[in-house]
């Protein structure tokens, strides 16, 4: 009986000690895991266009984390859907065409002599890529423009165009030329 008590006591003591050590370690050496929303947001193209039905990429990332479909982002296209599918452990599916089609990369361009300086486009731009002030000409900072299309609609004089962006990188698409020894 006494032995049993000793054994039990020893076990309890061990449990408490290890519990304390583990508890301490879990607080002290806590690994800051990347929250899911952050990870999803990192995969999204950050065009902030709202075509997915949410006011920006981050809200869509939150929606995906809460179980929304992963195929609603046209700017990201198939590539993004694939990455999202990998991350979420679901099957990749084709882009939901209700939200738009994948398109070439574009940027906004203001026909400056037609601009009346109403500043509406500035208010619409999600990334502050438009420069200008009331009653003066506005212009788009091409490097900051994400091509989200949101400034086109509010312009009262329709002087904003979306123009395709020139690829700076060469693409290889010809086939290799093999030397075959026929002798």
């Amino acid at each position, binding site marked *: 009986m006494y032995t049993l008590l000793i054994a039990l006591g020893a076990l309890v003591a061990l449990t408490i000690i290890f519990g304390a050590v583990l508890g301490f370690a879990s607080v002290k050496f806590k690994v800051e895991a990347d929250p899911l929303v952050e990870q999803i*947001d990192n995969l*999204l*193209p*950050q*065009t*902030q266009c709202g075509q997915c039905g949410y006011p*920006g*990429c*981050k809200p869509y990332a939150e929606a995906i984390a809460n179980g929304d479909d992963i195929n609603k982002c046209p700017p990201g296209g198939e*590539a993004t859907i694939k990455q999202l599918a990998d991350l979420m452990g679901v099957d990749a599916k084709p882009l939901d065409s209700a939200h738009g089609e994948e398109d070439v990369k574009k940027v906004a361009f203001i026909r400056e002599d*037609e601009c*009346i300086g*109403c500043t*509406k486009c500035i208010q619409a731009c*999600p*990334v*502050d*890529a438009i420069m200008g002030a009331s*009653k003066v000409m506005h212009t788009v900072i091409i*490097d*900051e423009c*994400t091509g989200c299309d949101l400034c086109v609609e509010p312009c*009262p*004089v*329709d002087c904003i165009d979306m123009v395709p962006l020139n*690829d*700076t*990188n*060469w*693409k*290889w*698409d*010809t*086939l*290799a*030329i*093999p*030397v*075959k*020894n*026929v*002798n």
Partner: protein
Amino acid sequence: MHSELSLIEQMRSGKLWDIPGGIHPPERKSLSNTSPIDIAPLSPIYYVPIKQHIGNEGDLIVSVGDRVLAGQPLTNPKEGLSLPVHAPTSGLIKDIILHVSAHPSGKPETTVVLESDGENIAIANQPIPDWQNKPNSELIAHLKSMGIAGLGGAGFPTYIKANPTKNVELLIINAVECEPYITADDVLMRHYAQEIIQGIEVLQHMVKPELVVIAIEDNKPEAISAIEKVIVDHKHIEVRVVPTKYPSGGEKQLIQILTGLEVPNQSIPADIGIVMQNIGTCFAIKKAVIDGEALIERVVTITGESISRPQNLWVKLGAPISDLLTHCGLVPEQDQRLIMGGPMMGFNIMDIMMPVVKSTNCILAPSEYLLPSRGVEQACIRCSLCADACPVNLLPQQLLWFSKAKDHDKLEEYNLADCIECGVCSYVCPSQIPLVQYYRTSKVEIKQAKEDKIKSDKAKERFEARQERLERDKQARLQRHKESAEKRKKALEKDNSAKDKIAAALARAKAKKNELAGTTAEVENKTSEANIPEVKTTDTQDRVAAAIARAKAKKQQAALNSDETKPDKTRTDDTKPKDIKAKGTEVVEEKVQTTEPVSAEQAKKDKVAAAIARAKAKKLKEAVEPAVSNVEEKEQTSDPVSAEQVKKDKVAAAIARAKAKKLKETNETEPKTDNTSSESIVPPVSEQMSTDSKTPEQIKKDKVAAAIARAKAKKQKDQGEQK
């Protein structure tokens, strides 16, 4: 491991190492290396791309219609990695266009189109006769302005390599030329050995190596003896004959063969005290420094079984390939393939107007029998022939797998960046998989993905900063509203009769407003007659009218053809002030009432109305300004009235403000604000409409009114959001 000291001793001992893998394809060099270098006839048109090297293109300094002489610079190099290009011959700049580039994709690049005048007059040469006594900086600037780039393949600007930041022990002159068919360096050495050595001397002066080694493959005995003959009295220049094997001419491969050292991942040979130059570049350096000629021509091998006179030619840069093929007698077979570069690393020419550029060493027209096109790609059978043959010990079959899956992380893990794109793996693959094409594509994709990532990170940052700012503004606004509401509440408590006073004031203000409406209408009748004719004559006016027209078209669309907008439109079209006043107010009010339930649509309409008001203010301003001469006259007639009007306007503005305040209060107390808030926008808008064609002072007031209208619209929106 070799200690730094023994590097040169080892080199002098003549020991050679081997590289892993490699292949021995049929050489077929004898086709073109027997005849001396001929000069290509002048082409009628030259296409000179302004970017022919790695780095940035220069800024164009010629324009269409200019006459240029051979050797005259066409661009001005930028800061950093940049080189100029020069006119290959004398003639007229016919055009500056986007022309197919000397690249596998044929991506159009900015190109100067030069029409040759047949004279080929050159500008005065700018030699540096006493280069031995010149400082490095001067020679480097000279090499840059002469446009010297590596002629071996990549086209790296030479002035960078000739100006190493570290101490250089060994200068290797690459004359290996390991690709089949190409003989440009071979014949250059045979016939211009003396000039090449002069170029090497200049390089020696600049980089100051302890030893210069000229590496030549053992399949070029004539070139070897020609070079050996001219270096007998050069103690520090040696020829090293290396066994024939593809790709021993790769920069890192050749260093490994000669020194046994491997250039570490992501570093350059200069990091281990070695600089390498192509033999053709040495010749170009001699031309630039000793003869003072810019790089405007190079040796090009035109060869292949379909060429009746295969040979090496001095070709002026920018010459279209079609002219060279005609000169050498191309007899095309069916589906004749044309290749720029060698059969291993070259690419199919998609347009025979493609120009010869600084890095073009060969144009190949092989027969289908000797150089068959690639068959159908089969599945990988995991034979690992590719891995055995890869000169940099990569695992091509794994890379292929990851390339197909677009797995960029894995590709980098498997060192895709170290692939020299030699094409050996494609050559040996029994399944005819064009492996190297996958890698080239993937490399570009990785580069693109990295750029996109940088851009999207930036966009995210900006988006978040903006969200933060908007939130901050909103909070500040709310805070202000709260404070003012509290103040008012206190004031109210103090004086209960204040409410009555406000009511009385409002009533008075309304009465005044009615009065005002009557007078303004009269004034407008007078002034508008004076203004309108002038308005029509001005140019700016037309533009404004166009803008308004566009705005209107848009608005119409936005309003979904609802009935209320139609009278609106007619109102802005004819500029009769009386009508405007009456109709405008009615219409807007009517609109407010009819569209009440659909608040989203209404908000939009309100915005449009505000925009029109603003456009009108602008129009008015512009109409008044050109009429300066008439202003005095006008003012005389309208002076007494306008003084009165100013006062009335002030009152109107005050009413507007009062209403806004009242509105604010009601909004804060009761959440359902659609009705009142939309009504509130009416007075300023209609007020403004009645002020069409007034004096400059009034315009200012109009602007104030418009600003108030805008502020209100915004506030409404914000409140809408809050709800």
